[in-house]
């Protein structure tokens, strides 16, 4: 009896639990849900919280409404001037209209991605085709992304119940062979620069050297000038001294100076003198008599 009643109660509780689990459902903060009755949407955009439904007859589909990332494959686009670029982009999207989303994709995220990706691709492709490379890389990169974002957002809300929050280009790279050419150009630019640096060094060094040479030359010339001036001064002073001294007795100076000159000019061994015996010097040689110094004796 006790057992029976207990079992009944436990069974009752179990029934309540089953009922609760089939009746009550929780929509998470990260989700929105739609309620279907035999496949027909009867309640849209159910907000987070605890909700109830009729078991069996009604079913609930929940969709992740967080911001999702669609990382697109890299693809090759052509710019306005027909240059190829490799582009990698990503799309931030979000389910905003669960009903529409359910209708369009049956709630399948992969399906949604398959629908979004080509649109993004095409829209970027168009955008790239309108701009040249310089504009794409530098000047109008923002426009490049905001244009398609706004355009696609509108369409996708309509068609898929999905908001395109952001399209961002990650990489814009040049294809491999073009990159090689770019590297080649970069290298040649560097070589040019390196050569310029070295040449500048040569120039500067040459300038310094030439300047130094000039200074040396000037220094020496100035020194010579000074030196010659000094010599001149010395000569002048010497001359002054001489003329002062010799001016005292002109005749004696001539005599003395001549004797000096004789001595000087005959100092060399190589001189051969041919002398006449009747010169004044030899007067005693001819005749020791003081009176007849002038006579020519045999």
């Amino acid at each position, binding site marked *: 009896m006790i057992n029976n*009643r207990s079992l009944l109660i436990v069974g009752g509780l179990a029934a309540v639990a089953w009922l609760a689990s089939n009746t009550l459902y929780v929509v998470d903060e990260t989700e929105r849900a739609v309620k279907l009755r035999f496949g027909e949407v009867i309640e849209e955009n159910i907000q987070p919280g605890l909700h109830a439904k009729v078991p069996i007859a009604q079913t609930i589909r929940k969709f992740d409404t967080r911001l999702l990332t669609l990382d697109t494959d890299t693809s090759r686009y052509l710019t306005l001037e027909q240059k190829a670029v490799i582009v990698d982009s990503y799309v931030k999207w979000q389910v905003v209209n669960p009903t529409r989303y359910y209708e369009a994709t049956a709630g399948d995220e992969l399906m949604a991605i398959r629908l979004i990706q080509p649109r993004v691709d095409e829209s970027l492709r168009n955008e790239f085709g309108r701009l040249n490379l310089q504009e794409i890389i530098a000047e109008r990169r923002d426009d490049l992304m905001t244009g398609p974002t706004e355009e696609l957002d509108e369409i996708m809300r309509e068609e898929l119940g999905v908001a395109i929050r952001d399209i961002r280009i990650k990489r*814009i790279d*040049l294809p491999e062979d073009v990159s090689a050419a770019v590297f080649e150009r970069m290298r040649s630019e560097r070589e040019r620069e390196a050569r310029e640096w070295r040449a500048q060094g040569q120039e500067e060094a040459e300038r310094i050297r030439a300047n130094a040479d000039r200074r040396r030359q000037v220094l*020496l010339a100035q020194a010579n000038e000074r030196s010659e001036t000094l010599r001149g001064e010395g000569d002048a002073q010497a001359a002054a001294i001489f003329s002062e001294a010799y001016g005292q007795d002109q005749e004696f100076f001539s005599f003395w100076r001549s004797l000096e000159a004789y001595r000087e000019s005959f100092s060399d061994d190589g001189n051969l003198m041919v002398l*006449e015996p009747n010169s004044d010097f030899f007067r005693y040689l001819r005749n020791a008599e003081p009176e007849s110094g002038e006579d020519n004796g045999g």
Partner: protein
Amino acid sequence: MAWNEPGGGNQHDPWSSGGRRGGNDGDGNRGSNNGGGNNGNKGGNNQGPPDLDEALKKFQDKLNSMLGGGKKGGGKKTGGGSDKNRNPFALPGLLVVVALAIWAAMGFYLVDQSERGVVLRFGEYQDTVNPGLQWNPPLIDDVRMVNVTRVRSLSQTQSMLTRDENIVEVEISAQYQVANPRDFVLNVRDPAISIENALDSALRHVVGGTDMIDILTSGREILGSSVASRLQSYLDNYGAGIRLQTINIESTSAPEPVIDAFDDVIRAREDRQRTINQGIAYANAIIPEAQGQAQRIVEQGQGYRESVVAEAQGQANRFNSLLTEYTNAPDIMRERMYLDTMEDVLGNSPKVLLDVSENAPLMYLPLDQMRGRSGNQGRSSSSDSSDEQLDPNVLERLRNTQGSSSSSSNTNSSSIRREGR
């Protein structure tokens, strides 16, 4: 991320230990594992019962009302039955009480100092809870823990196009924190990947708007700050609840295939400096040398001047002295000086003494040979002339004229002897 159900067996311990430790449990994660070791903490149990009772009561009320409001009328019976008849309901009642106790105990959890808990009640955001011991009804509330103080980082190395269509390699790292736990948990699926993508995009965007030379040299700081502001705006736009702390441009360099060319530029710059230094060294070497040389030249000039003057002065003095003597006795001085000089002059030179006036016919005098002899004394005699080859007449005459005077013949013979040697 709240309490895991399997951990239910240990429920009491983390709660009690948590009661004592409170917020100063600094080591990051949940305190449950720490508490798990310390069984039977009495101090904690004292606090437990009031809460537990309240919770139980609350739950019983809820349960009653739920059962009452539910489809089964049995709920009322149960409620009423428990008063009347204890025995039949003892077992289910006990089960319920035990279940409730376990359930209530499962509701305790610790929030570490570094964390915040995002509480969802039936999936709906309710609260963000701060560090400390917290209780939320399990199964009803879902608590997701987020570390908000840890600085997360992310780094990338990429090669990318610059504005002038060059390619550079940039190594960048971003550090960020969770600023808004709610947004971080609820708004974006996989925030880490989002920030990675956003960083990639922002960096390439900024680099694409900058010239290569700026990226490689001066513009790195600006690069970092503009990437940071751009990235933050993306993240704000996504509502990611992330606050960027720093962007570091770790390095920027030329890509691998051209790096040697870039290095060569650096080398060239060094070479330039080296060449200039060599030039300066040259200048530094020759200018002082030239200065020295110039000084020498000037000194030589100076020396010449002084020596010339001194010499002149000396000669003048000598002349003056002589002149003084000369004025005293002019004839004697004159004669003496003359003779002295002639002695020196004739004493040093080979000489030929001949009487020209008596002999009318010109005689042959081999002056060249005589000179050559004296000039070639040291050499191996290019000319064969000797004493004997002199004209005998001349010798004869010479002997005749010189024989009488012994003094002069001495001189002559010595000089001829010298010639012969």
